[in-house]
């Protein structure tokens, strides 16, 4: 027998970062719940994630003992609230490796972040200019661009999709050209699960001098994302999908771009000075944070970032990769089930959409619900992707750090029951 020596520094199976899923689950009160007397099996994290006690408590404590408005008061409570808010911004900046915390703008959700860029950058477009998106975008990265192109006369164009649910880059050089002003793409698809490889596209975007925005709503919660590494100009993501509260999202952008962009929402805090006859504007982040910001929500999002860091994003990504491989295998045993999107656990996230024979997803979802299994059904705010594959609706199971293989087994059992009922 020959001994195999693994060279030093090579990854080994034992090196994979791991965590104790049961211990994580214990932090999420809702996971102990039942529905209709059945154990809750929450497989809808791509829709919204559940919240650990640490996040819930951070917000409750903030409201109970440190609540005040920010950036407006000299008083002690105001200083405490402002420090908490700034601190959350710094945590989020570090989480995505932003060069400066000033580049992190707190919005109400990812949708607002996408609208800010569409309106501020897009408002300057002219007829003849082009904007490029793709057929797998969430509605939140389609409609803002449709609206601004309508207003300005610019042209909206898009990447098509391959049969495997990946971006069709075959016409990249024609699609992204000298007329292109901005390319805005989903990084991880919320319907197909695809993680888009962006290197070739980025190179082309730089070549033609356009801007690049990535919708990272389904990426940042699940794996480390480094804005410098990706050489991107803007990203959007949303608090409630990453263990944080509703009511907060993030727009990250390069500081020099943000400070040169016209404001979008007008109001308190985004100004330098206001006269009835005209106003000058503050720099980022204040420039794009009109009105009282989501203060307690920022505190909650900061606590969520702390929680994710305490587990480790690499460990979370690995856990999800294993779950995805397990689920793809398990679902392939269900007769009549057809997966839309990549069928291998590579270049994809932990979100799997499918049809089950002729059974309508509403009915699949209802049977699963009766067994406690919570999945999302419908068009997943991505109708063009459904149209591309000729389906009106899909059933979608999506996983997160607290998901177990036992929950995937429950899903598979539920699908068998749906088949018994509807065929």
């Amino acid at each position, binding site marked *: 027998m020959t001994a195999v020596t693994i060279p030093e520094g090579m990854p080994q199976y034992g090196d994979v970062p791991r965590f104790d899923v049961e211990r994580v689950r214990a932090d999420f009160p809702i996971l102990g719940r039942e529905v209709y007397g*059945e154990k809750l099996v929450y497989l809808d994290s791509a829709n919204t994630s559940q919240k650990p006690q640490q996040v819930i408590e951070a917000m409750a404590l903030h409201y109970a003992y440190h609540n005040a408005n920010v950036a407006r008061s000299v008083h002690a409570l105001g200083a405490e609230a402002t420090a908490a808010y700034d601190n959350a911004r710094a945590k989020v900046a570090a989480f995505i490796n932003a060069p400066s915390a000033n580049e992190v703008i707190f919005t109400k959700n990812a949708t607002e972040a996408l609208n800010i860029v569409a309106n501020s950058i897009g408002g300057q477009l002219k007829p003849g200019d082009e904007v490029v998106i793709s057929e797998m975008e969430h509605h939140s990265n389609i409609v803002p661009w449709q609206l601004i192109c309508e207003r300005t006369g610019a042209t909206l164009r898009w990447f098509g999709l391959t049969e495997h649910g990946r971006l069709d880059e075959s016409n990249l050089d024609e699609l992204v050209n000298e007329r292109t002003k901005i390319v805005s793409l989903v990084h991880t698809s919320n319907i197909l699960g695809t993680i888009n490889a962006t290197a070739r596209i980025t190179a082309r975007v730089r070549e033609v001098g356009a801007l690049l925005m990535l919708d990272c709503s389904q990426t940042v919660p699940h794996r480390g994302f480094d804005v410098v590494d990706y050489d991107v100009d803007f990203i959007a993501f949303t608090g409630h999908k990453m263990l944080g509260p509703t009511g907060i999202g993030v727009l990250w952008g390069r500081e020099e771009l943000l400070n040169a962009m016209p404001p979008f929402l007008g109001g308190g805090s985004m100004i330098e000075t206001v006269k009835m006859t005209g106003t000058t504007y503050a720099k980022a982040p204040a420039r794009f944070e009109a009105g009282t910001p989501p203060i307690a929500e920022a505190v909650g999002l900061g606590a969520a970032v702390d929680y994710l860091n305490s587990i480790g994003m690499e460990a979370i990504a690995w856990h999800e990769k294993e779950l995805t491989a397990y689920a793809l295998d398990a679902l392939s045993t269900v007769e009549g089930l057809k997966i839309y999107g990549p069928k291998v656990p590579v270049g994809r996230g932990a979100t799997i959409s499918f049809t089950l024979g002729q059974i*309508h997803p*509403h*009915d699949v979802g209802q049977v699963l619900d*009766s067994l406690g299994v919570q999945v999302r059904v*419908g068009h997943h705010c991505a109708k063009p992707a459904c149209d591309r594959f000729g389906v*009106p609706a899909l059933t979608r199971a999506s996983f997160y750090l607290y998901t177990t293989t036992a929950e995937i087994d429950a899903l598979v059992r539920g699908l068998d029951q749906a088949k018994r*009922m*509807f065929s």
Partner: protein
Amino acid sequence: MQLDQLYQDIILDHYKHPQGRGLRDPFAAEVHHVNPTCGDEVTLRVQLEGDRVVDVSYEGQGCSISQASASVLYELLVGRSVAEAMAVHAAFVELMGGKGQITPDEDVLGDAIAFAGVAKYPARVKCALLSWMALKDAVARVEEKS
């Protein structure tokens, strides 16, 4: 959860053997309705003769509840006067809005009483109502024209 309260046999029967499905000529009005939350769609035509609903034809995609409800609508309303049809319509809408607290009248609603269980599932009420709302819209358009 008692799934069979929702999916009563009558519903599953109508779903598997839909009555009156398909788009037919002649028609006095055609409408297209969408359920924006789930993307279900129905195209529905209505034909009146004098005061009478002589045909309702439809085509669409949707779940068992929305398909069965269109089928039941066809069975229940075709052949009635517009006034009678609208009375049944009102009873059905009331039942669906009742959060499961209303006991339906079988004399008025016929097979549609099977949908009583749906009223407990707010997310599915819209499915059951899709074709019924389309019908009301279609009838209103005919009446507008005349």
